[in-house]
């Protein structure tokens, strides 16, 4: 057993750390938030150049042969900088599903240009009633000649406005909430009948509501097997969860560092407020929470490639529970220890707090994953 980073991984960590530190100062980030896309094409080009877009994919898929640890390293630094480029929807989710389920033709047409920085994706699964059930899908795809016709609604689709293609989870058979009968389709973002309502999110990302009105796609739009997408989606989401946990550990490190600095310098009653034991103990709990979050993220990153889906799912859910708990504790404590300043827009803590809050809600909150973990662990 060896839990240390290789020299190459250390280099990756340094370059990601430098990117976040230099390109994502508080003021720079504010400017990026205000741009039309909400992220910078020049940064995306830099990701491609540095090999980040292909690092987690196998060499036969045109990648550089890394894996979840490389993703963890980069996502953690993205968390520190609150990076806005759509790495998660494009690379982790989109790229991940294409690599896992795509045909050779799809990989050539989609994955290769993605690795070069020339294609972006969005993953449309959530519907109004879905909550955290990945199988609670009612958007319908019906046979139309040799192809398919899609009709229905998808909500809170991150990066839909910038994506070239939207990967859509649709019901092709079966009843509501049945895992069997779901199919993934790759739909051109400009397809006829696909309309969008775009909006920013609480944490300054971009998302959209998508309406599909008889959107026609060919048979070659199917990603993987018809009616059998659920295992692909579940695995992709577990991987996304682990990547998001790494992002959250970066957020926690940053918010804890900012809070520590603040309580060392802010004076009340003639002393730095960090001299008060009640704040010392709370600060210690923040650090302990961040440590646990880091540990669970590492554990999950190491187990996410396991062939046993139960091992994989338990790892992802366990980490997500920890991140939900630790993220909330660190975020709320940072605000409390900053006093009123902690909830002003001008302080970075409020922005980390918002991102940590939204991470808990994405792909299942703490409660959801506690239930999932409990079902998996008690069955064994």
């Amino acid at each position, binding site marked *: 057993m060896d839990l240390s980073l290789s020299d190459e991984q250390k280099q990756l960590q340094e370059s990601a750390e430098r990117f976040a530190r230099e390109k994502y100062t508080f003021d720079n980030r504010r400017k990026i938030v205000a741009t039309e896309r909400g992220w910078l094409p020049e940064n995306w080009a830099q990701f491609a150049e540095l090999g980040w877009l292909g690092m987690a994919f196998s060499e036969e898929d045109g990648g550089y042969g890394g894996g979840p640890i490389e993703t963890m390293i980069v996502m953690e630094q993205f968390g520190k900088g609150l990076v806005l480029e759509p790495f998660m929807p494009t690379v982790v989710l989109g790229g991940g599903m294409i690599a896992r389920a795509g045909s050779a033709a799809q990989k050539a047409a989609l994955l290769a240009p993605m690795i070069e920085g020339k294609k972006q994706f969005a993953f449309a699964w*959530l519907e*109004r*009633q879905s*909550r*955290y*059930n990945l199988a*609670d899908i009612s958007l319908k795809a019906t046979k139309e000649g040799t192809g398919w016709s899609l009709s229905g609604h998808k*909500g*809170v689709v991150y990066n839909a406005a910038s994506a070239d293609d939207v990967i859509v989870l649709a019901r092709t058979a079966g009843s*509501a*909430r049945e895992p069997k009968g779901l199919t993934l389709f790759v739909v051109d973002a400009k397809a006829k009948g696909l309309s969008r*309502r775009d*909006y*920013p*999110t*609480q*944490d300054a990302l971009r*998302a959209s*509501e998508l309406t599909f009105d008889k959107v026609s796609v060919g048979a070659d739009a199917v990603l993987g097997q018809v009616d059998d997408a659920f295992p692909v989606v579940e695995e992709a989401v577990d991987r996304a969860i682990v990547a998001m946990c790494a992002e959250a550990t970066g957020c926690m490190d940053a918010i804890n560092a900012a809070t520590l600095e603040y309580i060392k310098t802010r*004076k*009340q*009653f*003639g002393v730095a*407020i960090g001299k*008060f034991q*009640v*704040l010392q103990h709370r600060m210690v709990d923040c650090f302990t929470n961040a440590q646990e979050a880091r540990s669970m993220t590492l554990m999950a990153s190491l187990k996410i490639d396991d062939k046993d889906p139960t091992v994989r799912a338990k790892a992802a859910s366990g980490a997500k529970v920890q991140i939900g708990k630790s993220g909330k504790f660190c975020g*709320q404590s940072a*605000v*409390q220890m900053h*006093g*009123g300043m*902690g*909830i*002003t*827009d*001008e302080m970075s803590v*409020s*922005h980390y*707090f*918002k991102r940590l*809050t*939204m991470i808990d*809600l*994405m792909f299942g*909150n703490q*409660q959801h994953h*506690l*239930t999932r973990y409990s079902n998996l662990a008690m069955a064994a």
Partner: protein
Amino acid sequence: MDLAFTPEEQKFANEVRAFVRANLPADVRDKVKNGKHLIRDDYMRWQQALGKKGWLVYTWPKKHGGPGFTPAQRYIFENICAEEYAPGIIPFGTKMVGPVIYTFGTEAQKENYLPAIRESTVWWCQGYSEPGSGSDLASLRTKAEKDGDHYIVNGSKTWNTMGHWADWIFCLVRTDSKSKPQEGISFLLIDMKTPGITVKPIIMADGGHEVNEVFFDNVKVPVENLVGKENEGWTCAKFLLANERLGIAAVPQSKRGVEALKDIARVEQDNGRPLIENQSFAEKIADLEIQVTALEFTELRVLSQMAQGGQPGAEVSGLKIRGSEIQQRITELTMEAVGEYSAPYLPGLLWQGTNEEPVGPEYAHLAAPRYFNTRKTTIYGGSNEIQKGIISKMVLGL
């Protein structure tokens, strides 16, 4: 002891409900019900209606123009107002400076200021915290120097709530910098139109503007605007804070919040069933409701002591701690109920009341901003760390 209302109290409850239904403007009620932000005029129309009835200053004794409600009547009044979606009464005049003036002010001050507070024709705001003086309020540095029959005020105040709508501000100022921090403070009333006052917005994490920094640059304030004795303002300050902490528990609002949360959990779906049928989530709501009940009965006990002639003491700090935590828990669970549909940020709908269509249900876009904003409740009015310090010192003698 008897928990049931007497026939007189029941009659009073009917009277309050009829009054609120007849006098609360429908548009204001709808805004409160749908969680929309209110503007100055919304508050004023409701408060002036209450003022005409003599109920706006419902905590005041009769001799100062209040209705002299019994604790039971106060309880009934507050709960029915909340149940009927009346906006919260702005406390700066009614619960803060008003009682300070009738307790420590001169006859002239009472005549000058109290009627406008009772009738809500003047909007007051608070000048307590400073950038360098938050929890340690007594370290404040805004200076007032006597110059003939005026004080000249210089300095700045922060976390000034709704000061951009205010006509008057009550301020703690330093009139003596040589003695102990608490001993050189005075309580001044200042007209916001006085030259030299600048109000600068502070934008909060939810994107909204409700608090300000207020700057004083050689502001001339007549000496007759001093309340109480010079350098003895700390007495007024403490008196006011104890009153503030009582209202801060917000029990009726929290009861309403729990009901609204249940309504959302009945609509939201979870595996094809209403979320409220999810055992884990239902138990979280139940736990919250029990916390609210404990708080409610603690507050009733405090009110009952006060009715027997006591002033609110250190136990009020406990109400503030639990009340603020409960308010936060409500917003946390509401966001949990809404789930991923909390993510869309719609500032136009949230702040300007535009006709923009919500994404998902009407309540969804409010959940996260409320959660972020409500983090303030354990910070303001003396942070909960400070409240715990007060209880450990004053109640437990530690």
